């Protein structure tokens, strides 16, 4: 004959334990959804295998191989996409009825341009298994020095929430800036007596000093701009700083310099036009 009291005490214990287990399972579920406990199924399985004792070594080395493959994949994406991402964090804000709203923060750089974008992503799983995704809020932070050329574009993009446009245009902008930097650096190395870069090779200005005529300075202004629409344009202008005395001597030669340079640009393109210009001065 069993003790009725003992049975009911034990039954009470069972109920309390069942409640504890349910609470912990809920915590795990919740954690998976809002990103605080991010282990995906794959890692969960590995954890189980490794802790299970048997086959732990194998699971560990498989995980190592997988991590190496992921590293290679990330390298490929970085190379082709032109963006080096340093971090991506996400938080689930809303979840239910097939609709998931996440808050994401992605930081990285495109060449020398650092960025951080924070956005809300709404994913709507439709009946036909299609997933409609939409950016519902976008905030872009860039380095103060880079902000200037990009500020009107960035505020336009934040308004339209066009995340993809931001990255496409950022990449093109970065490529044009790199072209400019490479070209300026090339000419400074090739013609150090004539060419100087007062603002450094990343700046918009390259100055050309006439070796024979001190005080006569030609300024090459190469601006790279991004329109509100996302179009990237390069513009080269030639500005002349000529002292009064030189102007009196031969104004014609100097006066038409800016227009002549524009024609050269149209025919030869930036590098060849600059080369011709510098050689004309050095001669």
């Amino acid at each position, binding site marked *: 004959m069993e003790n009725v009291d003992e049975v009911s005490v034990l039954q009470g*214990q069972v109920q309390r334990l069942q409640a504890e*287990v349910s609470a912990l399972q809920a915590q795990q579920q919740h954690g998976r959804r809002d990103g605080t406990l991010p282990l995906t199924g794959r890692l969960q399985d590995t954890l189980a295998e490794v802790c299970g004792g048997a086959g732990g070594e194998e699971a560990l080395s498989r995980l190592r191989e997988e991590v190496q493959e992921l590293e290679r994949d990330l390298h490929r994406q970085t190379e082709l996409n032109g963006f080096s991402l340093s971090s991506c964090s996400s938080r689930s804000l809303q979840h239910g009825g097939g609709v998931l709203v996440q808050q994401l923060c992605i930081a990285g750089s495109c060449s020398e341009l650092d960025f951080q974008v924070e956005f809300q992503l709404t994913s709507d799983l439709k009946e036909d298994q299609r997933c409609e995704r939409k950016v519902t809020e976008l905030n872009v932070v860039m380095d103060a020095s880079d902000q200037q050329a990009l500020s009107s574009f960035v505020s336009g993009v934040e308004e339209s929430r066009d995340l993809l446009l931001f*990255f*496409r245009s950022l990449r093109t902008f970065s490529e044009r800036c790199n072209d400019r930097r490479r070209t300026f650096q090339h000419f400074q190395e090739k013609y150090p007596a004539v060419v100087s870069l007062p603002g450094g090779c990343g700046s918009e200005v390259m100055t050309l000093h006439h070796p024979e005529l001190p005080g006569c300075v030609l300024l090459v202004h190469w601006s790279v701009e991004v329109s509100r629409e996302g179009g990237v344009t390069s513009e080269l202008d030639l500005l002349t700083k000529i002292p009064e005395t030189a102007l009196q001597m031969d104004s014609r030669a100097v006066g038409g310099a800016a227009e002549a340079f524009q024609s050269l640009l149209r025919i030869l393109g930036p590098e060849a036009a600059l080369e011709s210009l510098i050689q004309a001065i050095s001669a």
Partner: protein
Amino acid sequence: MEGEATKGVLSVLSRLEMQARSRKAKPPQQQNSVKELKSTIDALITQRDQLKAQIETQMCVQKLRAAMDKQGAHEADEEMDDGSENSKLLRLMARHAQLKDLLHAHHLIGGYDIVKTCQGKGVCVSLATGYEGVYLDTYNLEIDLKETLRIGRHNIPPFIPVNSLAEQSNMQTDIRAFLGALSQHLNAFAGRKQQELHKSVEVLETNALCSILVLLLTVPREKIAVLCTLDYADHTRCLPTRVCIECEDKELPGSPHWKNNITLLKETPVHKALITMKKMGYIV
């Protein structure tokens, strides 16, 4: 400090996993015998402790992951490394999670998602399109990596000149320039198409490339019909290069209001321009 916790947690997990497997947990039902109840209690205790240990491990991994995000993978490694097998495992798991997230991020920002195919003899890239925050169609393109790069199969519509873009941008030497140009064309097309979907007025004519749009607008009071032609000659843009207004009333297109409307249509996406024009009462 982290090392101690992880050592403890993982060995506890091991033990519990083995216990759980060697014991068959009975489904919780009304049990009356002391023996059955005690066995159920043992199983539940194991399950509870297992869950606790799992959650603690996951939190460890998450902490590692957060440190990695802030400092970069290698520095975080050195700080948290106590050389133990468990510590190595946790770091691997954190790195795995971080890598998956970074790859997902590349995808979300419109990356090409390059994938190797045919044992390295080719690659497949995905060109994502979107407009004003809405993710639209993704196009795929295979490139065969033989002596010269050759475009293989793709699902890009025929009115996008893939081959001529490849030539113009020197695909052989600069594949990024080619993909950038192609992406620009595809996104501009997707944007123009998306604008058209907001149709609030009658569309008389359009084409597959969405490079021409003829709209029938109505002036409210006099009910005059205005034919508005939008020419998108630059296929890399979502805004028209030319806007033409035709009307029976010859004075109307030249009027200052309509000159403004033409400017508006040139500078603003058509769906937004039409909404503004309606609000201002120029059209119905």
